[in-house]
């Protein structure tokens, strides 16, 4: 007796995605502009990995008096000091801007803050985390992050180009860049700290998005050989509909896992996982509404791999 199945997408859909593409392009363009604008106007809230400086996480025996600690630390002459409650009223995250004068100065500032906190809170304080990054290292980390992102991008483009035709490679690259810009925009808009794990999040989103895009492209390639005379727009619609159920399923399982991480995984990785959730939604959207219709505009040639044409019924079926 068949058990009822959870179906998020009807078994067979014939949604005219490509007819909506101009609307989708407008939406995409608006969101991209919004992202770029936010990055330009608001900029990033760079963490110490990239900006240098000091981060400390302390736990106090009683509810922390942020006002008192803030005024004490601000009086130390260390420049900008930011305090925030971190997960519970007893946990405080302290950020101190990069100190002028090299690595020694960072260390001296850590000592000053430590002493000031001991004085304010008493011996019951516990230093759960102390990090500082000197100016030279943070500069190198920025460089590394940019290079890593570019290498991934080029690698993906080359791989897709190699496995498909050039239009697919270009389409995948544009889609990926779109997703990266949007995820970066998410960081700018929300003001989430942008640090090394954020770069990891961006790269993961990149990996996920390309994964999703490739699934749709794969089907387009397959159907191009199968239905030689079908109009490209109709064909792409068919492919997106055929893969829609899978696209939604995989997005949901991945999102379920990420939601568990955001809710239960602790403060340290919360923004990391939240940005991935956003990125995966965007990646799913873009594989349908950016990657697929781009092929129409890139004037994908028909019958490019006609020699490898197969029929719908492979001879080997059912013989295993």
């Amino acid at each position, binding site marked *: 007796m068949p058990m009822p199945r959870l179906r998020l997408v009807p*078994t067979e859909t014939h949604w005219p995605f490509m007819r909506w593409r101009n609307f989708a392009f407008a939406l995409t363009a608006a969101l991209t502009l919004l992202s770029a604008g936010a990055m330009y106007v608001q900029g990033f809230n760079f963490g110490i990995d990239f900006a240098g400086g000091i981060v400390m996480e302390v736990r106090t025996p009683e509810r922390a008096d942020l006002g008192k600690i803030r005024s004490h630390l601000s009086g130390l002459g260390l420049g900008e000091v930011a305090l925030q409650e971190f997960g519970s009223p007893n946990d405080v995250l302290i950020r101190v801007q990069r100190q002028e004068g090299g690595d020694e100065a960072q260390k001296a500032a850590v000592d000053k803050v430590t002493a000031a906190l001991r004085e304010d809170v008493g011996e019951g304080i516990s230093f759960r985390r102390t990090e500082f990054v000197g100016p030279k290292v943070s500069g190198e980390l920025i460089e590394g992050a940019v290079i890593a992102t570019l290498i991934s991008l080029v690698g993906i483009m080359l791989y897709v180009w190699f496995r498909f035709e050039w239009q697919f490679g270009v389409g995948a690259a544009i889609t990926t860049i779109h997703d990266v810009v949007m995820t970066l925009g998410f960081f700018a808009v929300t003001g989430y700290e942008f640090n090394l794990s954020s770069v990891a999040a961006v790269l993961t989103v990149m990996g996920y998005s390309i994964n999703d895009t490739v699934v749709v492209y794969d089907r387009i390639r397959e159907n191009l050989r199968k239905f030689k005379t079908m109009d490209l727009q109709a064909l792409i619609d068919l492919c997106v509909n055929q893969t829609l159920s899978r696209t939604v399923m995989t997005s*949901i399982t991945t999102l379920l896992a990420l939601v568990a991480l955001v809710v239960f995984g602790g403060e340290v990785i919360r923004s990391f996982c939240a940005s991935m959730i956003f990125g995966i939604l965007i990646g799913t959207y873009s594989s349908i509404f950016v990657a697929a219709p781009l092929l129409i505009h890139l004037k994908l040639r028909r019958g490019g791999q006609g020699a490898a044409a197969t029929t719908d019924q492979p001879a080997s079926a059912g013989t295993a």
Partner: protein
Amino acid sequence: MLYFAPWKIVVILVTCLLGILFAVPNLFTREQLATLPGWMPAQQVNLGLDLRGGAYLLLEVDLEGVQRERLESLVESVRSELQAGRIRYTGLGVVGNAVQVRIRDAAQFDTAREALNKIPQPLSAGFLGGSGGKDVQIEAGPDGLFTLSFAEQGLKERADAAISESIEIVRRRIDELGVTEPSIQRQGADRIIVQLPGVGDPGRIEEILGTTAKMTFRMVDTSPEAIAGRTPPGSMLLTSDTERGADGKPRTFVVRKKIEVDGDELENAQAALNQQTGQWVVNFRFNSAGGRKFANVTKENVGKPFAIVLDNKVISAPVIREPILGGSGQISGNFNVQTANDLALLLRAGALPAPLNVVERRAIGPDLGADSIRAGWIASVIGFALVVVFVFAAYGLFGLFANIALVLNLVLLVGLLSLLQATLTLPGIAGIVLTMGMAVDANVLIFERIREEQRLGRGVIGSIDAGFKRAMSTILDSNLTTILTAIVLFSFGTGPVRGFAVTLMLGIAISMFTAIWVCRLMLAEWVRRRRPRQLYV
């Protein structure tokens, strides 16, 4: 598709069993592991510093400091050679990366050249057999201007030696401090990564690593000029951190630049409580060569003060009352129990060839690490439960197969992490949870394809067969691109981010095995035994 070659079945089952075997040690405590039979693997997943608590220090060797110091000592060599040859000179000093001196008397140019030529030493022979290069190059300019600079090759050798030596000294100091399982590695041209598990507050260690600990024994300048408060050439003005003058400010000493005995020649040093004065002191003993030198110096200078200098600070400047012939002595300089022990440790471990700067520090307290592990566990269990329930609800029996494959995926991942001794970090746990979500993708692709094939009117076996076959290239393409970004992430990232890349990469790679092969084997068995007439995917 129902037929699996026997060897294939064996390979699949053996791989799974091995994975489980390597994963099992993680269920036990370390004590329990010790009691297991020897053939059982006993390696557990290596927890990163962010999970077990500990300190990560990135140290930079100040090679410019080494260069500066060498130039200064070159100046001293030039001075003493010229003085010995009674050659009159002017303008001796460091200019850029070289030492310059001008000989006043044209008649002495040749004698000066001869005298200066004594300074360069042959470079250690390279693997090309050494072309007789010298470490210092001398250029004679017009009107008696001599420029001495270090040979390029020698500089590089020196820098490399300075780094290896620094690593050695850092290791010795950390061993003396009793940190368990420290990891000390070279990074890049002039950096050292020090990882100290369990050290939540590395302040003291940083202090000890940041001290060059170059100890020298020199004579205090007692010439009339120095007593009058001027610093004659060949001497230098040093302050003391421990001794204060009558005005309460740190005392200053005019000390001769010439080093009588170097701290390198110390053989041992121990902190001790002086029973008579009740003060902490450091007892030291020279090796035989150092002892001889020390004996000679003290013999010749009875009644004069000498200075014990550590990193250009005078620790104490006692007057030599009688020759010290035994090669051992005592330093007293207002120590307390900690400073005396630290100094003794530094002297035992030896001086750094160059100053070390901490350029990055990340210290995690053990309780934060424990909290992160707990949070990671809870998130993993809940994430896993959500995915499993959802997949079962969507695919029924097939979903059950996919879930078994997923469990196996996780077990194999833990086993592989243990086997490779890869480091698991908090983002790494996030990588595992993310893998759970993404690993199902392969099965989703296959199942969706099977559904489609069925709708096209294929039979049970035909649909399953076509589903696997058609989904294959898609799975390969999509996973390879993800793995590609994970590899880039791994090679660029540090610490925690690397942990993320590792689990994501391995998790997805393993999913290709479990979701395709293991799942297919289960399906084949099921079809063979039940002979279903219709599939409810």
